[in-house]
């Protein structure tokens, strides 16, 4: 075997393992509120729906937006999002809140909003990250 080929193969193996390892570290699982309360970390993802009947409000003292969300297992919890009410919040039929659970309140630093798309092919707008 040619030395350059060996170097190439070793390099590729190293590269692939490193990428795969890093990839596995940068993804996480979607969980529900119950599971979230047992997990550590600030980037826990919970999918759910906004409970429209419950009050939601923006507090100008803490600069957070509070609302109630029901996760996919049916757990209902209050979510406190660090920011004003996102743009397309009312239209959302699904939300992903990212953050951590403390005292039965989910503190979310990021929120992803899934809207029923009108224009589902050509744009990245269906999935607007709000930061």
């Amino acid at each position, binding site marked *: 075997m040619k030395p350059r080929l060996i170097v190439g193969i070793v390099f590729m193996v190293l590269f692939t393992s490193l*990428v795969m390892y890093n990839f596995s570290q940068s993804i996480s*699982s979607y969980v529900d509120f119950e599971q979230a309360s047992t997990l550590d970390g600030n980037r826990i993802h919970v999918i759910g729906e906004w409970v429209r009947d419950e009050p939601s409000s923006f507090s100008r003292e803490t600069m957070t937006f509070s609302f109630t969300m029901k996760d996919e297992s049916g757990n209902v919890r209050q979510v406190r999002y660090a920011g*004003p009410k996102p743009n397309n919040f009312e*239209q959302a039929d699904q939300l992903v809140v990212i953050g*951590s659970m403390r005292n039965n309140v989910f*503190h979310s630093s990021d929120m992803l909003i899934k809207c029923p798309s009108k*224009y*589902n*092919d050509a744009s*990245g707008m269906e999935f607007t990250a709000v930061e």
Partner: protein
Amino acid sequence: MIGIIGSSAIILAFLSAVAATIFYYLAAANKYHNAENVANFFYMLKGSMVLFASGLLLYILLTNQFQYYYVFNYTSLDLQTRYLIAAFYSGQEGSFLLWILCGFLVGLGILKYTEDTYRSPVMFFMTLTQAFLLSMIVGISLYFFDLGASPFRTLFSEMSDAPVFRSNPDFIPADGSGLNDLLRSPWIVIHPPIIFIGFAMMTVPFAFALASLWKRKYHEWIYPALPWTLGANLALLTAIFLAGYWAYETLSFGGYWAWDPVENASLVPWIFGMAGIHTMLIQKKSTIAHKGSIIFAVLAYATIIYQTFLTRSGVLGEASVHSFVDLGLYNQLLLFVLTITALGAGLILYRYKELPKPQKEAALLSREFLMFSGAFILFMTGFVIILGTSSPILGRLFVANPTPPDPVFYNQWTLPFAILIAVFTVLTQYIWWKKQDAESLSSELISPTFAASIVTVVTIMLADIDNLWYMVYLFAAYFAVIGNSIIMVRLIARKPKLIGGTVTHIGLGVLFLGFLGAAYDRPLLDQETRNYNRAVLAGQVMDSDGFPVHQTIEFIELERGKPKLLDNRYMVTYLDAEITNHNRPGEQRYKIHFENINNPDDQFYLYPIVYPMLANSAPGAIEWTVEPEIRTGLTRDLYMYVAGSALVDQEIERMNRETAQQGMQTITGMGADQALAAEEQNTVEIRRGSEITFGDYTVHFVNFQNVAETEIEDETILAVRASIQITHNDTEVSEVVNPLFVIFDSDEGPMAYSPPSSISEFEASVRFTEVNPNSETITLEFDGITGEVTRDWILLAAEHKPFISVVWLGTFLLMFGFSISIFRRWQDQKKREAKAKAEKRKIEEVHLEEEKELEDIIA
């Protein structure tokens, strides 16, 4: 009726595409003499049917025929014509149709310009992909499954269970559900056609690569394929730029790129296309790259199809929140991906042994080896991005129910690749134009290295860059710009036609510089918020439950007329807001004043916009959105939007009240308690000569006034007026009114009479309802003014975004470079073809002469 004709046209187009594929196959396999003509006939038939169906779809869109699902779903009566036209590709079905249309036009180009050897096999692969695409929109139900979804299906067929259709199957809605307000932008309207032109053009190198494998002509295919690949890359780049620009100026997430799977879907084919272009260029000089050219050409197209599968099949929609209307095309799309991959991989493996390979290993410092390594880095970049985008599938290897990777994953991996790519562009360019050894190369590279180092150090100091990776990256980007510029200047002097490559590389370097700006986006905050954020980062802030707060605040509250100093530089004042109804009903415009405290001349007004998306929202749940205001600068943009305001809250309340009223028209009158509460809210007691604050107003009881004799009726016991001055606290608008109080004698004893006096300035009125002569106090009852304080405030999110203009400049340079290269490669191919033809003619002539001589001899 139109629907049936349209659907039939698509079915006929699909069948013709299948027939054309079969006959192109026969022609390529040299089975029948006439096969190619038959195939061409079917190809043209398919094309006419696609054109016809497209015309019909456009017709039903322009004439608002809401009985069709597609028309109902994507348009409404209030849409301007250009958006009605754009609705053509607003949905999956129409965008497939547009893609097919572009593919047909590209196929015409192939038919016209491709030489005989490659034509039939190339057309075979082209029509095969067309048949697959058409199968997505035929919309016929077979026994066991539905094939595609037709853009011509009716609303009734889509939702026959809906109550309205059960009572009346002929129901036609009066208006459609309309186009999302965010998409009513010229940028996003022209984006899809360009991307589909890119997709269609990227089919060409794929088809040529496979044709070369089939026909075992591994070398010449790159000449005709190269201009198409460059064209595809130019189109993809333009489309990505348009969408990025739209996202930046329309959406409030504040950037042009978010590593969204939909974005990656067009970026990865672009990167693989780039890798392919580079290996094709080496292929002209050396056999090191033949395999690479074929593999990259296949990969570029396969990733287009793979990412189409990811984004349109609902795979992403299930695991992440990526939503694409799932049309049940999962199986068809999967089959498409598998076929393309199997065809590509299968043919490559089948011919692998035969493919040309280099006689001896290329030297490390040869242009071939350097360029090939560059292409390989591009490949690895694309690979990482695909891996991330595939997280809903591949992530299952590691966790259940995987989320998309954190954007950090993409940033961390692409950064070192970008550094390598930037450096390689310079090394390769220096070697490309002149054979060099290590020594001569290093001596030539001294000046660009030196120059790049100086600008890097200056930038690091000016921009306060403290990340080591960023420093290296910055140097690499400057190195690419400067190194390639030197080469370009040299080339302009000698062969200006050949500067395409260097211009592209300069553009890439500039683009890389621009990208770094995104790492230095900085919110404009006042001192208080900054102190708070610093405390949060230090872990010193606890919430009411005693847990540390992690989230910093990146926006500020501004009260009307009260300036705040942002970023220690700008005195920012919210001046006022008005409902302009400018572009859409209910649109609000905010007026914000910026003044640089270091430089009084540097002051300006910005007008961010907020509007309700009435077209898309259900009454009672009106969605509000913003139009960011951007002040473009040479080195940085000032980007801002109003994230919330008193006016929006007030409007939401008003709209909800109106909806509630419409819903409950039968309920009139208030309960007694409520009425009492309302009265208390509106009533004020005030002593003569005194002033009190009432809600947003100051009420001044100036004095009593006598009532003129003529006004007094006989029964009157007492008649008096009060002179009241009402002043709005914020605006200082003021009005004086003189409400009347009368006590008169009636059959039932003395009665009080207090008519309302209107306060026209505030659209309100006041009644003088009681008087206490002893204490000289009176009671006033207001209507339209309440004691509630309504402070006028906005939440302002403002950011400095460095180097945005640099990103656009880099993109334009790239586009320009691509265009030059396309022109040059196209001419190359033309020349080569002409030469080949001339040679062929020469051979034929010789042949003829020989025959003639032979005949002469015989005679």
